[in-house]
């Protein structure tokens, strides 16, 4: 049985590129969407709480505490996004290796 190494390499290359396009695009899209959502939430919180402070529904200390909570939320989100990205990379690595393994074993 002859093995055409060039064909194997071309096949693997094509499959890896397709796999990367699908999975990495999804990762980037989700990250952008999450960031936009969080920004909108923080902005809306600030507007509402400023109004509440003006109307006496919040004390100054409570307002300050809520600002701090929003800052923590941003930090928490950054940690979450970093972790989700690492998990995606792990899954992506496994996927790439599987693509390579499947391509090669089908041709050996």
């Amino acid at each position, binding site marked *: *049985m002859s093995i055409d190494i060039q064909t194997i390499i071309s096949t693997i290359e094509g499959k890896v590129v397709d796999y990367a396009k699908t999975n990495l695009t999804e990762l980037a899209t989700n990250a952008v969407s999450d960031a936009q959502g969080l920004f909108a939430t923080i902005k809306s919180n600030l507007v509402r709480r400023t109004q509440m402070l003006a109307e006496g529904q919040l004390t100054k200390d409570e307002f300050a505490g809520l600002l701090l*909570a929003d800052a923590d939320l941003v930090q928490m989100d950054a*940690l979450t996004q970093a972790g989700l990205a690492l998990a995606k990379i792990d899954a992506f690595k496994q996927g790439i290796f599987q693509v390579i393994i499947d391509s090669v074993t089908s041709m*050996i």
Partner: protein
Amino acid sequence: MKRMESRLRTFLTGLLIVISFAGCKPLIALYDASAYSQAVSIKVDLLNLLDKAATTEFTAANADISMVTIEIQKAMEYSKGKDLNSLSTSQYEILLSGSHSYKFFLQLWEKEKKLSKGASTEYKETFGMIMDKIIQLENGKNKEKK
């Protein structure tokens, strides 16, 4: 020619094995159902505590405050004990830190004796989202292959 093909086949097989092992080291810990369950439990108890902050004086809520704080401490220690889990651990460290919002909330409650209803509602919203971030990270970790 046949010997060359045989050597090529052996080489490719060897390459596959090396790639398989080289690719195995993960960047982050796998999903942990206990950790997920802890985070959900903390969220529920913390939100209940925030409700209490508007209706109950700080001194009367000491037992509930201790319960929630200890729950967070346990979750942090559990997280710290796992490899490749520093991001989740950092999230709990933020919750327990003296310079962050949970401790500030407790100090505020003690100072004001009771928080305003508005503050309680707003804190519930934000802390709910904070806990959701912790839960989201845990839930987003890869599941162990069976």
